[in-house]
Structures are given as structure tokens and as C-alpha cells.
């Protein structure tokens, strides 16, 4: 941050029309680019990792033809989708049809603004960042609903309806699960939440909130429309759900949004329950000194990668849930457990249970 300040001061002197507002704009712009570019690259290679890992789990080898060991596969995929024709259904509303992918990708990227990658590394430090995450996360589903509606076709519409009802059910569960974190940390600022988990691996919130971790992760699977809860796409039932009528770049944008959301949910899991940028070796003799040179962002990324791997692992393992089973899981299992756990956490807070409170 000091480097930034000196850079801005230098600009202030160097360019006469330069003032604070322009500087802030510029800083936010640079930060956004520095965030979005690696994110898009991560998304591209996440799709490659998905195909490769799922292939390995099915005793196949996955893509291995484009470039050495298939390393260029995501680039080839992107080029293919970019050069493909975008087909508009003849009786669809073209404006809504094109607005839908934008509405899907914009929240998926905007939600990253509040994520603290390391101590002091974030695009913006919002005091209500948890609320911001929940609010922007809910907007993402409008893209899917709009896509289903604007396609003017029955399978997309069915997919959109499923998506809407899933969101309503699981947004509540996710909200309650995150409320428990806010209760322990005493803040809805993600920076404060991570800071509050300082200490060691047992100071992280996954121990007092173990049921919430599981519930949050499963709900995150539903929120991002991933297997085994991918009824929104449901190839065997409704062809491709909301993606049926989309082709070329419009489809690629939905794809991008879905995978960006997946990575985001992994990061959020780490920040909420697994100590964010904190090293797992904190306050452990020798190991702490041994790994003290590793920057926090690396720890965050390692933990995130594990949860991203979990997404793929789960997809390769479990068959798709039936629609009513997903609903039952939300309303009859997860919601009661989360509500009970809120009271348990309240009790723990009152008893000042060490070392978390």
C-alpha cells in the first residue's frame, strides 16, 4: 500500500490534471484488471483440470492432444467458442437473450471485489462485505432465469424455474450458515473474519462450525449448479437447461460465470472456515519458522485449490439428485440443522469457549 501511495504521489507531481479522484479510479481499475485476468486464466485451467481429473477418476486420460499433455486445450476451447456463430432463436427477445449472459458474468466477477487475498490485498475493504457477497451472489441467478425466459423454449424455461426455486431454498441455508461465522467473529467484514481466525489451525472456525462447513459446501454446490445438484442443466432430463439455445461466445460467458462462481465459493469456504490467508503451521514449533517465508496468498490459494478439487471429486463420484430430494434436503435437513447450530453457537459465545471466542 505504501508503494501505491508513493506511486500516486509521484503521479500527482508529474501530471498537472491528476488529482485524488482520478488516482482512485486508476488504482481501482488496475486492481480490477490484476484480479480479473488471473481469474479468467484460472477459470480456463480449471476446466482443463476438471476434464483431466474426472477423466483420471474414470480410468481415462482426459484431453492430451492439444499441446504437450493437453496443456493448450483450454486455449483451443476458448478460440473455438469465440469463432463460432451466435444463433438467436427466431422468436426470442434478442435484447434479453444477450443481457442474460452479462447478468450471469457481472456478479460472478463483481463478487470478488471484497475478497481479501492476503493482509491488505483486496480491491475494496467493505465493512459489510459478507452481506455484499450474499447480495451479489443472489443476483447471479437472474442471468440464468432471464436466459431461460428469453430463450422462448421449454427446456430452458424448466431449467430457469428449477434454478429459481433452488436459489430460494439454498440462499437461506447459506445465509444461516454464514451467520454463525459472523456470530463468532463478531463482524461481517471478511478481513476481520480472517483476522479473528489468527492463531493456529485449531483457531480456524471449521472446528466449532463443522456441521456448517459441510452444509455450506453442499449448499455451494447447489448454488453453483454443480453435480450432483446440476438439475438446472440436467443433460439427461432437460437437455442443457438454460444453455440449450446459447452458442458460441454467449455460451462461453455462462460457462465462465459458472466456473468463476465455483472458484469464488471455494475461496469463500476458505475465508469463512479455514483461516483465509493464515498458514496452517502457525504457532507450531519449528514448522512455523520453516514456512514463515511463504506469503499468505499462497496459503489461501493452496486451500482454495483443495476445495476446487473437491468440487471435481464430488462431480466424478455422485449421481445426480432427484429434484424433490434436493428440496427436501434443503428444507427438512439443512435448515433445521443450521437454525439449531445458531443457538449452539450463541451458547458457545456466552460460555466464551476457548480458543474461538
Amino acid at each position, binding site marked *: 500500500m505504501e508503494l501505491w501511495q508513493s506511486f500516486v504521489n509521484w503521479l500527482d507531481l508529474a501530471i498537472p490534471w491528476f488529482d485524488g479522484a482520478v488516482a482512485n479510479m486508476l488504482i481501482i481499475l488496475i486492481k480490477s484488471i490484476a484480479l480479473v485476468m488471473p481469474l479468467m486464466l484460472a477459470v480456463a485451467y480449471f476446466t482443463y483440470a476438471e476434464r483431466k481429473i474426472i477423466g483420471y477418476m474414470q*480410468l481415462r486420460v482426459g484431453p492430451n492432444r492439444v499441446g504437450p499433455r493437453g496443456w493448450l486445450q483450454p486455449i483451443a476451447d476458448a478460440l473455438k467458442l469465440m469463432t463460432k456463430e451466435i444463433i438467436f432463436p427466431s422468436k426470442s427477445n434478442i435484447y434479453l437473450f444477450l443481457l442474460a449472459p452479462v447478468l450471469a458474468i457481472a456478479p460472478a466477477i463483481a463478487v470478488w471485489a471484497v475478497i481479501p487475498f492476503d493482509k491488505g490485498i483486496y480491491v475494496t475493504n467493505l465493512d459489510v462485505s459478507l452481506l455484499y457477497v450474499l447480495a451479489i451472489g443472489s443476483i447471479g441467478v437472474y442471468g440464468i432465469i432471464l436466459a431461460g425466459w428469453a430463450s422462448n423454449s421449454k427446456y430452458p424455461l424448466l431449467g430457469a424455474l428449477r434454478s429459481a426455486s433452488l436459489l430460494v431454498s439454498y440462499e437461506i441455508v447459506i445465509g444461516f450458515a454464514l451467520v454463525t461465522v459472523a456470530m463468532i467473529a463478531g463482524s461481517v467484514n471478511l478481513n476481520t473474519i480472517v483476522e479473528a481466525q489468527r492463531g493456529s489451525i485449531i483457531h480456524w472456525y471449521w472446528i466449532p462450525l463443522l456441521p456448517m462447513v459441510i452444509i455450506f459446501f453442499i449448499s455451494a454446490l447447489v448454488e453453483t449448479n454443480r453435480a450432483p445438484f446440476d438439475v438446472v442443466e440436467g443433460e439427461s432430463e432437460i437437455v442443457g437447461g438454460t444453455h440449450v439455445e446459447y452458442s458460441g461466445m454467449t455460451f462461453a460467458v455462462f460457462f465462465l460465470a459458472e466456473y468463476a462462481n465455483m472458484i469464488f465459493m471455494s475461496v469463500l469456504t476458505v475465508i469463512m472456515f479455514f483461516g483465509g490467508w493464515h498458514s496452517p503451521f502457525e504457532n507450531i514449533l519449528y514448522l512455523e519458522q520453516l514456512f514463515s517465508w511463504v506469503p499468505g496468498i499462497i496459503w489461501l490459494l493452496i486451500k482454495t485449490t483443495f476445495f476446487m478439487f473437491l468440487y471435481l471429486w464430488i462431480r466424478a463420484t455422485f449421481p445426480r439428485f432427484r429434484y424433490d430430494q434436493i428440496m427436501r434436503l434443503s428444507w427438512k435437513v439443512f435448515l433445521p440443522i443450521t437454525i439449531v447450530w445458531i443457538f449452539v453457537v450463541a451458547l458457545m459465545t456466552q460460555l466464551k469457549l476457548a480458543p474461538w471466542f
Partner: protein
Amino acid sequence: MIKKIKKIVKDFSLGELRGGLKITAKELVNKKVTIQFPEERTPISPRFRGLHALMLYPNGEERCIACKLCEAVCPANAITIESELRSDNTRRTTRYDIDLFKCIFCGFCEEACPVDAIVETQIFDYVFESRKGSVINKENLIEVGKKHKDSIIKAKSEDLKYII
């Protein structure tokens, strides 16, 4: 009672799910069974019936005597033969067409042939570049026979053991 408690513990600790995940994790590091097709190939039986070929005598004379037995036996009517009498009073084909779209690769032509002229090779990965390309003529068939002579003879002699 103990059983009941055990079941509850297993259910709430996602026992079944962990079992499934364990299996996929094991397969992740197992040896893969994929065969990289153009570079690696699966073993093929010597009786495999693939693309056809017309064989020649060692002196270069074609074996086919235009008896039209293959044309007659062909259940799909894929073979068309026209013949002529040569100056040395031998009968030879002027036209020998096989429509590979019609062909069902039953191998009857090979069985019917009295002089082992028409044979089916082990080639299965061939392409046509146009719709008309599905009909291969005498020149093509002889060319296939010349090109893959060794492998054809090897396969047929391997199969000979089983023909009574």
C-alpha cells in the same frame, strides 16, 4: 441400540458419501486403460473382415477369373463384375466394383472365391472423401492387395489352422 447409534453416527458423518469418494480417489491414481488409437492399436483377430483387396499371382497376373461367384453370393449386392475374353483365351474382369456402403463385411465373397482372389483385410480405418468414393474399383482393390500383401498373407496363413 448400538447398531442404531452406529447408523446415526455413520449417516451424520456422511459415511456412504465418504465410501464413494474413497473409490474415486483410488481410481485417480490407478493405471489408466486408454489406448491412444493412432499410435497404439488393439490386437486384431486374423479373421477380422475389413476392407477388401484383390490378390495377384507371384508373377503379377491377377488371380480373379471373373467367375462371378462372389457377385452371386453377395447378400447385399455390393459387387458388380464385367468380364472379357483376353487374346490368350483367358477370362478376366474389366470391371470389379465394390460398394462399401452396401457391403456388410460378411466375408462370403472370400469364402466363395475358388482362386483366393478377393480377400478381406484387417484394415478398418479408411475414409472416403466424397459420396461417390464409397465405390472402389478394380485398380483400388489391386492396389490395396499389393500394398498390404504381407500382412494379408500372414493373417490368412494364421487362420488356415482353423479351417478344416
